[in-house]
């Protein structure tokens, strides 16, 4: 089985968000970038398929050279090869189009992405890819088992979960649950050394349109001070008469 894991390079979850250039761009100043958490769960599941079912695992990212440390981290965790598509990822459709090209040329059986990237929260790249590639698709996937060509997956639904059966080739939009939090791996010294020798190839993007563009950002209005009360009578009263939520 040949697996492609799509890795989005995102600000660390603790990052403070600021905008620059007249509020038209995300300010990367002082921001630490990491593997998108949803993708990390997918990558770790891919490692399981590598170790238990001899899968070959490649990772791909659409981005400029600044994303390479994140890709090296994926290699240190255990991916066999990395592919960087040299373009700025501003639009989900555009990104999906690029990754689909790589997926098609590489003949992958399974493409794993995340349910959403935690920066722009598009939640669309894996689904668009599945359509462009004419592959089956499971989103918000929290469990994935593969035997031969047969796939059993569980996806999250509002208020519960749903078990699905399908076949390869498949695209997955994954999240926590694909593996447990405690299964995530911190790259060790050996992994980091090995990663330096692994192939990280850079390919040019294909021609594609930008379906959307972000023209302006803003931060939420600052919050007023909290009203502290010292008994539940006052609280219920305020929630009923002032906030009008009960």
């Amino acid at each position, binding site marked *: 089985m040949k697996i492609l894991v799509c890795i989005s390079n995102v600000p660390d*979850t*603790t990052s403070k*968000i600021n905008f620059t250039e007249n509020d038209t761009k*995300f300010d990367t100043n002082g921001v630490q970038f990491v593997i998108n958490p949803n993708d990390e769960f997918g990558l770790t599941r891919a490692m399981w398929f590598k170790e238990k079912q001899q899968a070959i695992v490649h990772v791909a990212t659409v981005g400029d050279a600044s994303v390479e440390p994140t890709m090296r981290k994926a290699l240190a965790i255990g991916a066999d090869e990395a592919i960087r598509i040299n373009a700025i990822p501003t639009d989900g*459709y555009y990104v*999906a189009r690029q990754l689909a090209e790589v997926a098609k040329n590489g003949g992958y059986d399974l493409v794993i992405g995340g*349910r959403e990237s*935690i*920066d*722009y*929260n598009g*939640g*669309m790249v*894996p*689904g668009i890819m599945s*359509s*462009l590639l004419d592959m*089956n*698709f499971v*989103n*918000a996937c929290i469990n994935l088992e593969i035997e031969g060509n047969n796939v059993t997956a569980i*996806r*999250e*639904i*509002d*208020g*519960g979960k*749903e*078990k*699905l*059966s*399908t*076949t390869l080739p498949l695209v997955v939009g994954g999240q*926590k649950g694909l593996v*447990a*939090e*405690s299964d995530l791996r911190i790259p060790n010294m050996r992994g980091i050394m090995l990663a330096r020798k692994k192939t990280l190839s850079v390919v040019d993007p294909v021609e594609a349109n930008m*379906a*959307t*563009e*972000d*023209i302006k*950002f803003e*931060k*939420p209005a600052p*919050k007023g001070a*909290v*009203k502290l*009360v*010292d008994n*539940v*009578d006052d*609280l*219920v009263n*305020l*929630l*009923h008469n002032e*906030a009008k*939520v*009960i």
Partner: protein
Amino acid sequence: MSVLVYTESENGAFKKNAFEVASYANAVASQMGTAATAVSFNCSEAESLGAYGITKVLNIADEKLKTFSAKAYAHALVEAAKSEDATVIIVSSSTDSKFLAPILTAKLKAGYVPNVVAAPESTSPFVVKRTAFSNKGFGQTQINTDVKIIGVSNNSFGAHENNTTATIENFSPTLSEADYNVKSIEIDKAVGKVTIADADIVVSGGRGLKGPENWGMIEELAEVLGAATACSKPVSDMGWRPHGEHVGQTGKPVASNLYIAIGISGAIQHLAGVSASKVKVVINTDEEAPFFKAADYGIVGDAFEVVPQLVQKLKEFKAQNA
């Protein structure tokens, strides 16, 4: 040119978000000087959308579409969009909508913007406001394609009555076997329980509650309020509560009217996922807990004392206001 809206139903009845997206579609349609058509699947009360400004409903009555199937539903919507000459398509932020919208996007070569919180700023150029960076910011996004797809955030635009009469037409899309390649084999969903996505009120517990055996009072509180229960990430990681209850940046987003956080410190990743809630109440022993800075109301106190009192008080309140 028209506006198409996917209105979700379950066992024949509309979900709450159906009326929100219908209202949104009606608003966009009036902005563009056109009408909004809804698409429903196996819905037995399609005419009720008339109350939200929808003049036409295409209802798809098909046994095979009883259970949600992302690809089949998406392809049915593609056909409906083509037959209605739709240039704007509205979906919700439910897990099902987020599952099918990207497929729809690819098939219609559309631009898709999810998590939209308001009616378009303008329709030419087409610009919408959405949340980004896990609620730490908002973005104005311009859609440049002929067909535009908008995912409306839960509980943001709201449902607005706008009384008209909806005519109902049966619609039969031509679907192929391949559209059903992903098959549902089992649905595991608590019946009669409010979901985090639909809830007006969410009651959430953190590590401060010490252990799963103490969730009884959280469930009791949720029950008097008709609320959904949720939890912080470590609580689900430790297996005290099911994973589906984990809310925050890497869990489920919460956009309720009221969010009550009990024994939760208010880490940045937790706040990112719940800040879209309108009113936040914090109960925590530590007055320095960061959550108080993001809250509207708070009680500095021990959950094991405060929560049972609150349950009692709410029961009395309900009895009086019944």
